[in-house]
């Protein structure tokens, strides 16, 4: 099978794996923070749940939703990275990820983005940037106590 480089670059093994077996794919019954994300262009929908402790550390984070491989893998990888981080660190990661996905910075510029650089390929596909960032936008909304967001 000979896929174009662009597709190979975007649909790397790790993304396909997280798409197939998303981590932390469950609802949390009593979250401290919660938000619903919606990308009306694609129809993608995503719920993000968080438990943040008194020290502002993310004790648990999970998601449930429907979407393309990019958005699902992005959500799954996000949960694994954010767990155990402080709220401020999570927000910083969001900013960095957003800048990378929109081509404003190179992933190599920020060592914290190492595990996220599999998504760097979306910067060449403007229609797919929102797929990659939906989970992060939703996380950000949850942390700001905004219950519903739409990326359109």
């Amino acid at each position: 099978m000979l896929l174009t480089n662009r597709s190979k670059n975007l649909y790397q093994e790790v993304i396909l794996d997280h798409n197939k077996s998303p981590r932390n794919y469950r609802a949390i019954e009593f979250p401290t923070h919660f938000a619903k994300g919606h990308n009306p262009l694609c129809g993608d929908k995503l719920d993000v749940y968080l438990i943040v402790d008194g020290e502002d550390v993310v004790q648990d984070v999970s998601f449930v939703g429907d979407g393309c491989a990019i958005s699902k893998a992005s959500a799954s990888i996000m949960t694994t990275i954010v767990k155990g981080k402080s709220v401020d660190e999570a927000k910083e990661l969001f900013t960095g990820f957003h800048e990378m996905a929109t081509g404003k910075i190179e992933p190599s510029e920020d060592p914290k983005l190492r595990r996220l650089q599999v998504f760097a390929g979306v910067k060449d596909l403007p229609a797919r940037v929102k797929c990659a960032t939906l989970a992060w936008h939703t996380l950000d909304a949850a942390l700001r106590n905004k219950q519903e967001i739409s990326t359109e």
Partner: protein
Amino acid sequence: MNDSITKSKVTPARILEIRRDFPVLERTIQDKPLAYLDNAASTQMPRQVIETVSAYHSFHHSNVHRGVHQLSQEATDLYEGAREKLRCFVGASSLKEIIFTSGTTDAINLIAHSWGGMNVAKDDVILISNMEHHANIVPWYMLAKRTGAQIQVIPILDDGSLDMNRFSELIQQPNVKAVCVNHVSNALGSVNPVEEVCRMSREKGIRTVIDGAQAIGHFPVDVRSIGADFYAFSGHKMHGPTGIGVLYGRQELLEEMGPYKGGGDMILSVSFDNISWNELPYKFEAGTPPISQAVGLGAAVDYLNGLDRQLLSSYEDELLAYTTRRLMEIPGMQLVGTAAKKVSLNSFVIKGVHPHDIGTILDGEGVAVRTGQHCAEPVMDRFCIPATTRASMAFYNTFEEIDQLTDALLKVTELFDVTD
């Protein structure tokens, strides 16, 4: 009749010849030849149309009507000449029945506003098929909100065809004022029996609003033999420019209707106390019309008339059959819309792969398809799917392009490890 004539077919060489009229078809995408299978979203323009528009822009442009100088007369003749071409193309009786709009959406808004505003009241019923494009839903929804009228849905069967039994029951109700059905569904490809829909509605005194956006590019349309009260379509779906569409309306109905937009050209006289409307079709064409767009659309009509449309329709049927067969080779494939009568369009889902991922990967292989809800959310809800991938063909598409589509889809299912 001679056998060789009845079996006469479009040859691959003829299709290649036609393709040479369409500059964009020579493009490559990611170093692959472009296979443009997004014709239901918008069709491509032949150079005959492109050049007509350019020549108009270069040498004949001026504002139409009311001008005594030669350029204005030329522009008026070209604009009104295009109207005559369109009249003839859809078999309308009179030029008064051909209103230029900015597109199908604008045309249906005109109907809902001007006809609906006068004829639909609280508790009246508007029947809308479950396979309508948002363009034939939202204007009626807005009218219903305003007037207190009710919207009722004509269901569709599992194969994506209209439920005619239920339809015949629904029209028995009193107070049904309008039936809104597309001639061809953009999400499913189904060709609806609009002649029957119109006949049955007419017998009950119900008005018919036929959305012809997806029909007009695929086969010859005759509004009188369909028997539609209103028939709407867009230039950019029949190899003409964007920014223009046509509303056909029966003269009698158009005469009674109040105006839509206000402005120049749609009035006979204006003072601050009193205004009188112009006659048809101008009553509905406020302001400077889409002049070069009408001229381009007229050129598209000429182009289509110059082709053997009947033969090309059969060619598209073969193309559809071939596409359907090849798609069935793909693991996890489920076709959405399998009605007996369809235009050359296939909507589908592949188990475990989101349409957006399919679209992106196909694009990498040079194959342009559309993915999503196709502005037909109720269809998606009906089939309980969030979105589909849609390959929509035109007469210039080839069997090789379908192979290119199939190969690309096989790469998708391999990548995503899809099994049947």
